[in-house]
């Protein structure tokens, strides 16, 4: 099973993601530069965190125009599982693959800490091993992580079960404490927290098992025994 980790100028969590996919979950993971073509027979795509193009103009907006994003959109339409983490989430919203927007945190501060998120949709390729409302100890690290959705978008998110994760606490002013959403079909998921920094016990001061289930869900989706 092949997973492409897309690298943009300014990505800085690409190698962490590649490490977790390759060394922890034994997937055939490949780093793909944003001007290259996606490899053939890709089974899943991850857009990692970082500061693509230095967050210039708006986090994720320049990367959303990268050549590879047209191929990512085609893969999304085909139902391939796609995960965007932090800056990857921002890129997916700016590319129109996910609804809503990520704004500066209300504190205007970069927030880097451990928190908990709650699973609100356990039907996606990245959450199907969870129980509904299960809590995940996880790392967050962002300055533009305040999820925003207007009334119409929020209505649509609720109606289509597109809210995937919420925070256990309100620390950045996100609409309904939303930490992650999916597209209407459920195969494209974006989340601000970092599962790749939380899925190994050596990195997680609490319990790494729940965060690792994000990747185990992907294995389950791809038909690989975890």
């Amino acid at each position, binding site marked *: 099973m092949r997973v492409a980790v897309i690298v943009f100028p300014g990505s800085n969590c690409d190698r962490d993601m590649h490490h977790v996919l390759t060394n922890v979950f034994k997937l055939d993971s490949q780093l793909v530069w944003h001007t290259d073509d996606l490899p053939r027979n890709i089974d899943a795509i991850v857009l990692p965190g970082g500061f693509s193009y230095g967050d210039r103009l708006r986090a994720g*907006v320049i990367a*959303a*125009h990268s050549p590879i994003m047209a191929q990512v959109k085609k893969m999304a339409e085909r139902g391939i599982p796609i995960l965007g983490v932090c800056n990857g989430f921002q890129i997916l919203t*700016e590319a129109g693959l996910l609804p*809503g*927007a990520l*704004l500066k945190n209300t504190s*205007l501060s970069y927030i880097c800490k451990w928190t908990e998120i709650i699973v609100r949709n356990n039907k996606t390729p990245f959450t199907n091993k969870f129980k509904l409302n299960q809590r995940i100890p996880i790392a967050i690290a962002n300055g533009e992580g305040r999820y925003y959705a*207007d009334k119409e*978008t929020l209505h649509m998110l609720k109606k289509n079960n597109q809210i995937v994760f919420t925070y256990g606490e309100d620390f950045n002013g996100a609409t309904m404490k939303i930490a992650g959403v999916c597209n209407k079909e459920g195969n494209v998921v974006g989340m601000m927290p970092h599962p790749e920094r939380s899925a190994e016990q050596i990195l997680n001061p609490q319990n790494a098992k729940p965060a690792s289930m994000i990747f185990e869900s992907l294995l389950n989706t791809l038909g690989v025994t975890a």
Partner: protein
Amino acid sequence: MPSFLVSVTIENKPEIVDPEGDTILNDLILKDKKAHVKKVRSAKMLRFQIDAKNKESAEKEVLVLCNEFRIYNPLVSKVSAETVSV
């Protein structure tokens, strides 16, 4: 062809919390007891220099660029433009 400066102001929609504007108001202006100041909203301004046949077409073309390249996020922000000859 004449040249124009098109100043595009990108401002978040009124219903969106603006922590930068609130900080300027609450932690600078109101702390100095200037209570007649009621509101501050932050915005970003981009200035485009563009060759065009007239002022109207210069402004129109810049706004098309803003939409085409998502220079502002229409879910979150609104834009306005002011154009002067160079």
